[in-house]
Structures are given as structure tokens and as C-alpha cells.
């Protein structure tokens, strides 16, 4: 039993964090009105962010979820606007479909598409099996969409997008209409079912990792605000009510983190309990992040309730991602059916 990440995994996350410190400040996030900054995405791709999980033959690094988790947490900590969860999930799914040979034509095009995605020159997105809207469809070159038990790659230009503006404006959402002959089939039958499961699990896992970062940052911002803000002649952080709110948020995040990591391990190692492990992780991460967001807003008072403070850049991310890819209740339901309906309790070898 070894819960540690490799030096390379730590170094990669540190490199992502470093890049984001320079190119994803709150000012940058505010300036990214469209939700996508090609230059920043390209820079991230240059250090490997878009290619970690793409198979080597397709221009990727052939890594796995564990290689990404720490880096995605850093993205959350920076409130990165670019759709790192969806694009990674889409690229991984397409790569896997091509690797397994579960494809019906269009292979050459997809190879080019995947290679461009790995380079950061094209964006991919994917529909979450739990959600009615597709994120970042407007920035994507192609969309991975599911229809009647089969998966397709659909050129963005061949899909009709209806924007559905949401509270997290940079995370653009769309209803997508498309003709089946506008898409290329990549999986059907058993392969499509497996792809749906993998897409859902990966999206939930990565959004969980992103939420950990956002929650961590919300707590850091609130702690530093609580040290500075003076009321009744002393810093508000000396008041016990404020301390206890922050301590509770901290505890929730600290305990959610190893669960997210374990979910990554279970997915990577193809554990029989992977679905349940991912659901436990997303339920905990969503709940912890919601708690951190609520506490952060309360600790900031009115200034937190404005667009003048940077806080909202993280609050909106939490509100969106804690619900996307299955909210806490949805995932608890999945844990419950495994535990209670199937009586799969024991986790001991």
C-alpha cells in the first residue's frame, strides 16, 4: 500500500501550477470572457496537459489518470477557464476507441484530430451521460456524442449549438442538435456501453480533482481575508465562529482528497469497484467544495457577494462542477445501489 505520487507526477503538477501563476491570474480569468484562451491552452498543451492520456501512437504521452490528478487540482486552484475536464475526458475516450479498434471508418481523420488535440491545436469535448448540455462545444473542433447506445465523433460545424448561459459563464454550455449522418460512429453495443461508463467515470473523477483545487483556494483566500479584515478592533479570524467554519471546510477537503486519488487508482488499475470508488470520490469532492464555497462567502461578507472581489471566480466553478458529471446525491445513489442493493460491502481482500 503506497499512497504517494511519483516525482514526475509531482513535477508535472508543479509545472502546471507555475504556468498558471503567470498565465492564469484572477485578472486573466476575468479577461477570458469567451471561456477559452487559445494561447494559454497551447502553453498548457506544450507542457503536456492535453496529451497526458492520449496514447503514444497518436502523439500523446500514454499516461493515465494518476498522472493528471495533481495537475488538475492545480487547474482548480487557479480557476482555469479552459475545459480541462471535458477535453481530457474526450481525448482519452477517443484514444481508447481508436486503440481498441472499435471504430467504423473515419480513422485517419480521427488520428489527425487526436494528434491536433494533443498538441493543443484543436479542442475536443464530450457530452456527460449525466448532463443535458455539452460544455465548451463552441470552442471544440469536434464533439464526442452519444445517441441511442452508440458514440459518434461530430464535427462542430455539423452540429447546431444553442447556447445555454449558466452561472459559470466561462464554462459555456450548449444544447446540441445533429444528424446522425453528420457524425462518425466510433463505438456501439458493448464497446459503446464501456465508453459511456469510462466517460462518466473520468469526467466525475477529474471534476472531483478540479473541485479539490478550487476548494483549497477558497479556503486559502478566506483564511488570508480573515487575518486582514478587522472588526470590533481585531481580525475576524480570531472569532471562533469564523475559525470553526474554516476548520470544518478544511477537514472536508482533506478527507475528500485521498478518496479522489483512490478513485484515480481504481480507474487506472481497472478495479472491480471503480464505479463505486469514483462515485464516493465525486460525492465527497462535490460536498466538500460546496461547503468551502459556502464558508468562503460567509467569511467574506458582502465583498464576497460582488464581482469586485475575485471570490466569485471560484464560487461559480464550484457551483457548476459540483453538479456536472453527477452531483453528490447522484453519486451517493450509485454507491447505495452497490452497497445496499447488491450488498457489495466488504472492501477487504
Amino acid at each position, binding site marked *: 500500500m503506497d499512497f504517494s505520487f511519483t516525482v514526475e507526477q509531482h513535477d508535472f503538477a508543479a509545472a502546471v501550477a507555475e504556468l498558471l501563476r503567470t498565465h492564469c491570474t484572477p485578472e486573466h480569468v476575468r479577461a477570458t470572457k469567451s471561456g477559452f484562451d487559445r494561447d494559454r491552452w497551447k502553453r498548457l498543451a506544450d507542457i503536456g496537459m492535453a496529451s497526458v492520456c492520449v496514447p503514444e501512437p497518436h502523439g500523446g504521452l500514454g499516461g493515465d489518470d494518476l498522472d493528471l490528478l495533481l495537475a488538475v487540482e492545480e487547474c482548480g486552484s487557479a480557476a482555469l477557464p479552459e475545459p480541462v475536464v471535458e477535453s481530457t475526458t474526450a481525448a482519452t475516450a477517443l484514444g481508447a476507441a481508436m486503440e481498441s479498434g472499435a471504430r467504423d471508418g473515419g480513422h485517419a481523420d480521427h488520428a489527425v484530430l487526436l494528434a491536433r488535440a494533443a498538441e493543443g491545436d484543436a479542442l475536443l469535448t464530450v457530452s456527460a451521460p449525466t448532463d443535458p448540455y455539452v460544455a465548451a462545444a463552441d470552442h471544440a473542433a469536434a464533439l464526442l456524442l452519444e445517441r441511442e447506445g452508440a458514440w459518434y465523433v461530430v464535427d462542430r460545424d455539423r452540429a447546431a449549438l444553442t447556447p445555454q448561459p449558466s452561472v459559470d459563464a466561462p464554462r459555456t454550455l450548449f444544447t446540441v442538435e445533429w444528424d446522425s449522418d453528420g457524425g462518425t460512429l466510433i463505438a456501439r453495443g458493448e464497446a459503446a456501453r464501456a465508453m459511456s461508463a469510462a466517460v462518466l467515470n473520468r469526467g466525475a473523477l477529474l471534476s472531483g480533482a478540479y473541485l479539490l483545487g478550487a476548494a483549497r483556494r477558497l479556503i486559502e483566500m478566506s483564511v488570508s481575508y480573515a487575518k486582514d479584515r478587522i472588526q470590533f478592533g481585531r481580525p475576524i479570524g480570531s472569532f*471562533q465562529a469564523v475559525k470553526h467554519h474554516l476548520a470544518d471546510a478544511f477537514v472536508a477537503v482533506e478527507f475528500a482528497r485521498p478518496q479522489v486519488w483512490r478513485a484515480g487508482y481504481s480507474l487506472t488499475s481497472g478495479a472491480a469497484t471503480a464505479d463505486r470508488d469514483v462515485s464516493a470520490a465525486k460525492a465527497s469532492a462535490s460536498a466538500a467544495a460546496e461547503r468551502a464555497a459556502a464558508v468562503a462567502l460567509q467569511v467574506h461578507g458582502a465583498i464576497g457577494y460582488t464581482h469586485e472581489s475575485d471570490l466569485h471566480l471560484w464560487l461559480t466553478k464550484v457551483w457548476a462542477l459540483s453538479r456536472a458529471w453527477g452531483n453528490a446525491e447522484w453519486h451517493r445513489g450509485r454507491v447505495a445501489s452497490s452497497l445496499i442493493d447488491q450488498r457489495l460491502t466488504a472492501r477487504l481482500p
Partner: protein
Amino acid sequence: MDLSFTPSEREFRAEVRAWLAANVPPEPLPSFDTAEGFRRHQDWEALLADAGWSVITWPTEYGGRDASLMEWLVFEEEYYRAGAPARVSQNGIFLLAPSLLEFGTEEQKRRFLPPMGRGEEIWAQGWSEPEAGSDLANIRSRAERVTGGWRLTGQKIWSSRAAFGHWLFGIFRTDPDSRRHRGLTYFLVPLDAPGVTVRGIPQLDGLPGFAEVFFDDVFVPDDQVLGEVGRGWYVAMSTTGSERGLTLRSPGRFLATADRLAALVSDLGDGAAPTLRDRAAQAWIDADAYRLYTFHTESRMRAGAQIGAESSANKIFWSELDRALHRIALDLLGTRGTLTAQAPDAAEYGRWLDGFLFALAGPIYGGTNEIQRNIIAERVLGLPKEA
């Protein structure tokens, strides 16, 4: 990252499991807060000790097996899964022993550890006093220097297992001019020493799970001082770290309870309201999180990290988890959940009520959860002290 167990850990687990399967009493023992139950639990400790399972992390010379922390976590998972008896010796083996091993003289270790590990001498913790609860540094019980030792005077309270136990480890003020954390000394005191009076106090279940202990000029020889004179707080805090952190409440305990809760919901079928099903899933997820957090901590410790104030996060998490698990079970059972184990209808459900009452104390002992939140806020998050 490799979250599988090694072959040797698996082998170890199989050995523990087999022994427990053959030896755990089929019927639960009577509560160790009764005279008979106390004795029966001591017998169980002797059986465990004979097989080398009572204190596996201790050095072999004192009755242990030099087991690693990971082996201990595995042992605990199996122990609670098997429904083995509660540890009547827990204050000694989990709280005093780490301090004895760290601060004790060789003679003290040889004198005290083996009978502690065999359950022959049961220890009680004597820290709290009527005026020193959360504010533990407000200790007033004192010790006066006399030839060859000390004379103890004062009162301890809420001392678990003291009603039937044999020894007490406690902190007393040895420097009359000292204040707060200074001038305290850690003593080991036999509860049958002349001048000691023990009065059991019934807990919420009506049984004397703790006691108040009066000291009236009790002589304690020098070789029953643990650590340096005047450094009692420091020695005591090493024990508190164990109490809040890993060693007192291992994940195996909550994992087993969470699995039993899930089985209870399954058994009730449509009798379990959807909201309770959801709460049970949440509690199970939290038990799982506690387990993973502990494994993560174990990895960090193996890599050389020291656990400090984070152990307060641990204490909040397990105590609230335990309370939630039992509360949900009682809610699932409705009025039946309020029956004591003696009620004919209670059947096996009576254990949930006992567990519930016990779980309610978790947020109080070992430093209340409010105190733990203060510690996290100030020492982990770095917020300013209260004015």
C-alpha cells in the same frame, strides 16, 4: 501509487482472520463496565496475548511482534470485522504505552508493559479534574516532594475504566508556584494505594464507565514518575497525539460499523426510507474516506513525515462519523432502535443503542471537537488566537 496490499500483508491478514474466526466468542461479552464483564474482558486480553495478538506493534521483548503500522491497520480491520470484544486495556495499550516506550526507563518498561499487554493490569487515564476539562492546564491536583518519592493530593474525574481498574496514569502539579503547562509531572499510581478512593460514576447507559478518583496524601515512589519532573505536560501531549490521531480509533472500527449499517438497510428492504438510504450511503462513504485518509497518513509517515496538529482533523472526522453511523441505525430501526439489549424484541439490534450511546461521547473525550477546531484554525490554518 499502489493501493494493493503486499503478499506479506495479505498473509498477515489471513493469519489474523483465521485466529479470530477460531477464537472470538460467539456471544458478545457482558459490558466491561460491570465487574463480571471486566473480568471476562481481561480473560479475552490474556487469550489475545497468549497468541501474540494483544499489542502487535510493541517490541517483542515486551510482548509485541514489532508489527508495522500497516500491519496494525490490517489487524484492526480484521478485529472489528470479526466482531471481537472491545479492548478493556485500551487506555494502557494505546495511550500510556506509546509514552512509556518513548519516555520510560528500562525498568519501567519491563515492570509495566508486559502485564499491561496481557490485560492483568488495567490502566485508567487521570487527566481531567473538576476544574480542568477542556482547560486541562488548569490542573490543581498536586504532588509534594518527600523522601524517596512524592505525596499526591487532589481529585481526578471522568477516568475511564478506573471503577474496576488497577492503575492510573495522571498529571499532577509538582511545582506549587507554577502555572498552566509548566511544573506538571506524569505519575503512575496504583489505584489500591493507601489514600486513594475511587467512586464509579454511572454513564448514560447507567454503568460506571468512568470514576472520580480522590488522592489523600498518597505516596508514590520516584520510580513511578514517567519522564522528567516538571515535564509532565510534554509527556502527556505525546499521548494525546495518539488519542486523537491514529492509534485509538483505527478505521477498521468504523468500516465494520458502516458495513453493518449497509447490511441493515439491505435487510430492511422497503422498510428503509429513501432519505435514510441516502444518509447510510453518505456515512459509508465517510468511513471509506477515513480509511483512505489513514492509509495516506501511513504512507506519509513511512516517508518520514511527522503528524502534528492534523491529528485534530482526524479526531473530528472519526467522532462525527461514528455518531452519524449510529444515529442513522437508530433512525432506521425507529422505536425498536431504542430498546436495550435485554428487551426480547431487540434481538441483535440492541448493539446499535449501546454503540450510539458510546458514539455520543466521541466528540467530547480526547479534547472536545470545539477544541480540535480551534487547534486546526490556529495551528494548521494559522488564524490568530482569540483576544
